[in-house]
């Protein structure tokens, strides 16, 4: 795994054929999360002031949020019930009156998602085996921490050994970032209509914030 540029994750052949444009990029960050520095909280507060209700309404018009909404529909999700990542962050902003600081990682993801519109996830790098990718589940395969097996054919983000998270959904128990995490994998999910540059920029931005270089 490279620490220099976002690495392209693998996509299973049947999904590549079924969903051209589906992709995953991820980057290793040699640190864990933690408390947000004061400057980052200030940046979130400034961003809260710049982001208002009409912008949230207009999100559906913008090409990248629209691309995720369409993809959600195409894979059987209702983007109004389970909002796309950027809409989820925008909804929180409206409900809570601002982007509320949670932790270094959460704040970095919030900023990167709002700025780019791209879906981002984070995993504990020391608990991932090999490269990350997107595939469908086999029969009897489950998600750690979740009772029972997932329905066969569920779309998941996986490493080379097991599913790490549902695509746009829950992360397997112990595979996400926790206070003990020493190294993180920041991953962005690309769908048809989302340009490469936006996906790379999203990962870069989140990684830079976490590293304190942005």
């Amino acid at each position, binding site marked *: 795994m490279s620490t220099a540029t976002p690495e392209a994750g693998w996509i299973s052949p049947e*999904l590549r*054929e079924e969903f051209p444009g589906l992709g995953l990029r991820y980057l290793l960050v040699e640190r864990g999360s933690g408390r947000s520095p004061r400057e980052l909280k200030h940046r979130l507060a400034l961003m809260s002031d710049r982001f208002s209700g009409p912008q949230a309404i207009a999100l559906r018009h913008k090409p990248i949020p*629209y691309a995720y*909404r369409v993809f959600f529909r195409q894979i059987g*999700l209702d983007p109004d019930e389970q909002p796309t990542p950027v809409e989820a962050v925008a909804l929180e902003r409206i409900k809570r*009156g*601002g982007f509320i600081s949670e932790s270094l990682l959460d704040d970095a993801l919030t900023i990167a998602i709002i700025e780019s519109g791209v879906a981002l996830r984070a995993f504990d790098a020391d608990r991932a085996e090999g490269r990350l990718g997107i595939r469908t589940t086999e029969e009897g395969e489950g998600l750690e921490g979740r009772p029972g097996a997932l329905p066969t054919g569920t779309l998941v983000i996986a490493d080379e050994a097991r599913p790490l998270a549902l695509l746009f959904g829950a992360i397997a128990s112990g595979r996400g970032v926790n206070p003990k995490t020493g190294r993180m994998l920041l991953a962005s999910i690309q769908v048809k209509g989302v340009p490469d540059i936006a996906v790379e920029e999203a990962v870069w931005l989140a990684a830079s914030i976490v590293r304190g270089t942005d």
Partner: protein
Amino acid sequence: MPEELLEIERTGSVDEPARAPESSALIEPVADPAADRLARQELRRQIAVLEKQLGQLFASAFPRTGIEWGVPAVGGPRVLGVAELERVRDALAVRLQEAQAELERRGEVEEANRGLLESMIAEPDRYRWVRVAAEDVGERPCQHWHSRPRWGILGMLFGWWRVKHSSGCPLAMGLAAPLFAR
């Protein structure tokens, strides 16, 4: 293949209302995997077109409330089959059609209310005590126009009527931004 949806894509028009396809017009199940994949791709394209139209309608409907926008999910995330994609597409088409019809209906009522408001402003004494709320004319709520007498009882006696416009919505106040020591 539903002609209506193909027509939407061909013309690129977003103004024409989308009609729900007839159930008999759905794509026939096919045994050939390649044809099946093509059918799924075509349905995904139609879903994208309908989602775009629904999004545009949603934005244009703002700030009206009480319109149903939800389209139930068929369950995922997974690769949907032809029949499931058809269900999503049909549900989107129906929702779009219903939302357009509701907006048209409200548009007519709002137009009539705007006419009433203009008449009220021109001749307030003919519309005594009539009150028109902003949402009645398709605007953001928390303001209204009210035909009432100037100087209370004196105005009533002398027929000094006017339309008073309320002060509007309070300013948006979110949580206070965090304070930082300099």
